[in-house]
């Protein structure tokens, strides 16, 4: 090993040189640790490499650039602390080192970048001081140098040392202080948590239960059905996106609950009084409706599958049942706003039971069931249900049903064999051809709105309170806790639990926000009365409406939404009816479309009128003109020419078209004199002049440019020396930067052709402007390289080459635009100097003249 290292490895040396160059020309105040590490690794091999490193570094240190020196010094410091050999070498030449780093020789000050040189100096001082403390005993010259700096250069090393000590002390104190603060904060947080966490949890549970009460989760609805699969699905889907609506109408207590998922929706309507129940469940593929009404007890079951649908309606007691289930028609009738199925039964209206509206793509309800009968609809819609399931539902239904209800059961079509007769019956009853109907319903989550009523008022109030509490108090505190815990604490469990609490709060908030509570403005009682009359019962809106419901877009003059992803889940009965009515009665768009010109006040009518007028006028003009040439000749060529010929208004020049000499300009009467009695005789000159001008004016005919003016939308965008881009907006060519070409963000041309042409242009200009011989002469005379050889031989222009070589370093050669420079330029300008000197001379002369001008002797002597 030792023998091997006797000889320097050339590649290693090259590598070292590369590292040194890389590090020293980085221009950064700190070294790149990775490169430094590999550099040290090489130096470690043997002292020979240290020697090599020493020479490399000293060469770098001698460079006339403080940034290079600084980096080199930092590398030296690294090695100095490690290698004895390196120390020996450096200390043997310590005075030179001092000259280069701390400016001991006044004749050789540190090179320009001031910041770097200052940093170099201060860091060198502190390093020397450290070295002295560490190695001073062994290295005599180091001691001498230190003493020299201390005594002769009056460097206050004690100050430096104490400063560093003070800094360390301060840092320590700061750290302790921070620790203390952290501890205090932690304690405080924990304390707070102890106090408040319970409250928060309570609030969360309360709010949750409140939500549950208002919007029961679908699981709760269908516990009775015992349908595990669907409920499971719903449950899982409830997690990701669920909207729920709950409506309670205090009419005769009807309740509607709708839960919409990403894929499935459930609606549950309960009406008290005469006790009707409706359950609708829609899944991705299958939908199910179940309605049961008490009182006179009717039942409807509808089931829709991916392939077929089925509806059974059965009314007991008084009347027969009618149910429509025509999927195809309703599906195809997507344009129709609603498809109503009304029971044409002649029964009193006691019960209101609704209303299941699911939406298809077009946001239009496919089917609305309005039953105004005391009938019981029980529709069941089973997707891939087993018989067991369906039967169980039926069972439950039958349990719920009162007495007279006859069940019209619906079966899955899969088991055809067993109940084919019944199915046929069903088909017949419903007037269906077959089961082969396809009804696809896309369910997407939508906005859920909730009407505030007396029933849920208190609940909503509490919820609102909770919401407010959470927003104003709990959320910020919990956030703060989390911040504190993550910042100072190391108790992960606590943090986790707090984060859980936060997510709970967030979910509650989002739930609340999603729920569109419609405040109950009206005194509650009038509700059912409204349901009868046809007046619109739109919830009041305060001024601005950020979202325009799609059915009203036309009214607002907007295009209908092309594909809306929204789905409205629930339309309350009165609402539904009113909306239907309104659309039937009056709608702005309809009126515009249907009878645009009948109403003269509308804009459309006016437009139409105007259009008519213009067309008629143009027609007349067209007619009138061609008549003349037609009469003159029937020549086809002439026709063609005439078609081409411009149409110009009639004027004086046209009048005198045949003999233009006779054209007379209008007289200009000069009223220069205000005398109306005596006319001034010599008017001829002015008249003739006016005549000429007038004639010229008359002969002139301005024809306006027929083409369309296109504004220039582009800018030149050539990079300018001040770093900005040329802002000129020329059409084809910028007067400063030439042809306008496509440029990228940095102003460089993007098209390769442009690039080539530009560079060639530059070369041409350079060559044109340069006279190499003359430049060489000038350079020889001045002894300065002006860069004349740059174009021909590379690397001779040292300054330029260097800049290109190390782009990271600060350019020390550039002339700075300082205030001093600017002032100097102005003050020491030749013309200024001359002017000032002349002024001063003038002053002196004047002084002399004043003093001695009157004295004869001096006057004589001056001459």
């Amino acid at each position: 090993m030792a023998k091997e290292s006797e000889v320097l490895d050339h590649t290693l040396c090259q590598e070292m040189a590369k590292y040194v160059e890389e590090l020293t020309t980085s221009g950064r105040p700190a070294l790149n640790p990775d490169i430094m590490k590999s550099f040290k690794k090489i130096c470690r091999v043997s002292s020979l490499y240290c020697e090599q490193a020493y020479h490399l570094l000293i060469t770098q240190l001698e460079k006339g650039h403080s940034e290079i020196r600084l980096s080199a010094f930092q590398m030296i410091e690294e090695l100095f602390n490690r290698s004895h050999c390196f120390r020996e070498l450096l200390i043997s030449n310590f005075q030179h080192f001092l000259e280069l780093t701390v400016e001991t020789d006044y004749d050789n000050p540190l090179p320009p970048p001031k910041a770097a040189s200052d940093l170099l100096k201060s860091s060198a001082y502190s390093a020397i001081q450290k070295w002295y403390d560490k190695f001073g005993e062994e290295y005599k010259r180091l001691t001498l140098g230190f003493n020299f700096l201390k005594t002769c250069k009056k460097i206050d090393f004690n100050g430096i040392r104490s400063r560093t000590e003070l800094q360390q002390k301060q840092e320590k104190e700061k750290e302790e202080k921070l620790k203390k603060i952290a501890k205090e904060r932690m304690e405080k947080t924990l304390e707070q948590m102890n106090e408040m966490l319970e409250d928060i949890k309570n609030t969360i549970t309360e709010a949750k239960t409140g939500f549950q009460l208002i919007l029961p989760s679908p699981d709760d609805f269908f516990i009775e059905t015992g349908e595990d699969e669907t409920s499971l699905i719903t449950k899982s889907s409830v997690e990701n996106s669920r909207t729920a609506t709950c409506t309670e109408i205090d009419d005769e207590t009807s309740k509607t609950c709708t839960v919409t998922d990403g894929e499935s929706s459930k609606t549950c309507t309960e009406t008290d009084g005469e006790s009707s129940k409706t359950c609708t469940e829609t899944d991705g593929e299958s939908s199910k409706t179940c309605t049961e009404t008490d009182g006179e007890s009717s039942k409807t079951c509808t089931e829709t599958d991916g392939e077929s649908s089925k509806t059974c309606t059965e009314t007991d007691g008084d009347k027969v049942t009618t149910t429509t289930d025509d999927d195809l028609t309703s599906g195809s009738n997507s344009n129709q706003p609603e498809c109503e199925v009304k029971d044409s039964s002649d029964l009193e209206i006691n019960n209101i039971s609704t209303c299941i509206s699911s939406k298809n793509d077009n946001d239009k309800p496919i089917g609305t069931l309005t039953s105004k009968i005391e009938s019981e609809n029980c529709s069941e819609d089973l997707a891939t249900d087993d018989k067991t399931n369906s039967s169980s539902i039926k069972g439950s239904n039958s349990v719920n049903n009162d007495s007279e209800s006859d069940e019209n059961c619906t079966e899955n079509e899969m088991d055809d064999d067993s109940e084919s007769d019944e199915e046929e019956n069903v088909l017949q009853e419903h007037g269906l051809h077959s089961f082969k109907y396809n009804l696809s319903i896309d369910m997407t989550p939508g906005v859920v709105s909730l009407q505030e009523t007396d029933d849920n008022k208190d609940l909503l109030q509490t919820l609102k309170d909770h919401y407010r509490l959470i927003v104003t108090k709990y959320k910020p505190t919990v956030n703060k806790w989390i911040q504190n815990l993550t910042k100072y604490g190391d108790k992960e469990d606590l943090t986790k639990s707090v984060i859980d609490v936060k997510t709970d709060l967030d979910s509650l908030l989002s739930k609340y926000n999603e729920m569109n509570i419609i405040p109950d403005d009206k005194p509650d009682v009038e509700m059912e009365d409204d349901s009868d009359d046809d007046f619109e019962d739109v919830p009041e809106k305060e001024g601005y409406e950020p979202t325009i419901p799609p059915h009203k877009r036309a009214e607002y003059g907007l295009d209908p939404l092309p594909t809306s992803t929204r789905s409205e889940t629930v339309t309350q009965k009165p609402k539904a009816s009113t909306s239907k009515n309104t659309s039937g009665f009056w709608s702005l768009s309809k009126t515009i479309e249907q009878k645009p010109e009948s109403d003269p006040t509308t804009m459309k009518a006016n437009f139409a009128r105007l259009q008519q007028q213009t067309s008629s006028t143009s027609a007349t003009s067209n007619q009138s003109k061609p008549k003349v040439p037609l009469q003159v000749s029937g020549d086809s060529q002439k026709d063609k020419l005439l078609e081409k010929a411009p149409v110009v208004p009639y004027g004086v020049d046209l009048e005198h078209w045949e003999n233009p000499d006779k054209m007379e300009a209008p007289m200009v009467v000069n009223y220069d004199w205000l005398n109306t009695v005596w006319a001034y005789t010599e008017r001829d000159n002015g008249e003739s002049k006016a005549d000429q001008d007038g004639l010229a004016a008359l002969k002139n005919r301005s024809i306006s440019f027929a083409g369309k003016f296109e504004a220039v939308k582009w800018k030149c965008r050539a990079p300018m020396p001040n770093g900005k881009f040329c802002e000129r907006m020329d059409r084809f060519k910028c007067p400063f930067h030439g042809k306008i070409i496509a440029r990228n963000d940095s102003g460089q041309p993007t098209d390769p052709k442009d690039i080539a042409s530009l560079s060639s242009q530059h070369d041409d200009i350079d060559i044109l402007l340069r006279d190499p011989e003359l430049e060489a002469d000038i350079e020889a005379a001045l002894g300065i390289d002006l860069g004349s050889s740059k174009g021909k031989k590379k690397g001779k222009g040292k300054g330029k080459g260097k800049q290109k070589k190390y782009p990271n370093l600060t350019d020390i050669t550039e002339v700075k635009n300082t205030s001093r420079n600017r002032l100097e330029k102005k003050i020491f300008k030749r013309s200024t100097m001359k002017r000032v000197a002349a002024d001063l001379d003038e002053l002196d002369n004047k002084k002399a003249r004043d003093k001695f001008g009157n004295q004869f002797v001096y006057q004589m002597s001056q001459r």
Partner: protein
Amino acid sequence: MLKFLFEREQGLLDPLNLRRAESTRRTFALELSRHRDVEMTSQGAVNSIDIDLIESRYLLSGFSDGTAAIHDVVNQTGNVKYTCKVVCKIDRHNRYKHKTSIQSVCWYPLDTGIFTTSGTDKLLKVWDTNNLIPVDEYEFSGIVYQHDLSPVATKHCLIAVGCQSSRLKLVDLKSGASSHMLKGHQSSIYCVKWSPKDEFILASGGADNRVLLWDVRSAKGAMKVLDQYNGKAPSDNTTGNTAHHGAINGLTFTSDGLHLISYGTDNCIRLWDANSGKNCLINYGNVPNDTKKLVQLSVSNGCSPDVLFIPNRSNIDMFDVYSGEKIDRLKGHYNSVNCCKFHSPTQDVYSGGNDRNILIWTPDTDSSYDDHLKTQSELHVKESSADEVRTTRPTVMIDTWSSDEDD
């Protein structure tokens, strides 16, 4: 070395030969001493040093702040590490001290009880060493650049004083008056030196580029004007013979008095035959010299070849006197060196410079000091088995590559 010793034992070798060989070897191996220091006494630059001729024990130094100090350079403590203590000093509060910078100091050759100092306050003072009181003072018309006492004088007791005026003055200590005035220079005289061989021969150099040799017995004029061209001047010589193309600010005789070495601001060193006054035409190369005051050179004693020590800015260059070859460069000062003095008994060199240090350059032969330190530390370990020594000593000298470079 062993051969020399053996031959010496057998009586085959002249004792002088052995001595010369050894002292030459040592002189050539000079290094900055790691175990010897000179106590710092002053805040001023060291302008001049001198070692007494009787015991070669007392180092007299004059500083730019007007103070002077006498150090004992002989180590009698028994320790290897030694700092030369100040025996006595004329400190800043001494009422007799020079008001301004001291330019030159000189021991009385026969007795350490008397020494002389002179400075920019135009005074030459003769001090009583024991009382540190000037026993005599001589005032001159200009700055005194250098004064010198003849080391071999028995028949006279003259101090040669070179000062700003062009006249070289001789002060007779016996009469206490300026006895002679030697006219010959045309401008200020920077350096004067008595010959160590002939008590009446005196050399002087000045700003007029000339080096004159005087015989003080004839006051008519200079005995010789040294000519750098040896009478073969290339062009018409209007100003007379010159020794250099610049002012001469360093003069010294070789220890045998046969040669004279002059150092000029033309960055040249010239060796002259002291008897014939001929230029020996030895090329020492270019030695930068930009000071306008005295630079003390020194020549080794009892070596063959003899070595010239010459301050070169912040270094001291060592030259072979008779061949002009550069032997070594002593680096250690941090500012320009003003003076150096060879201490012949131990072949040490003392040097003083503007960095206020007096440095001792000792022969660094076979790294004996390191050996000594090693044994010392081993002894220590044996005695006390304390860890400190092991930790303090070796850690400083060895490489301390941290382990983080491993990966």
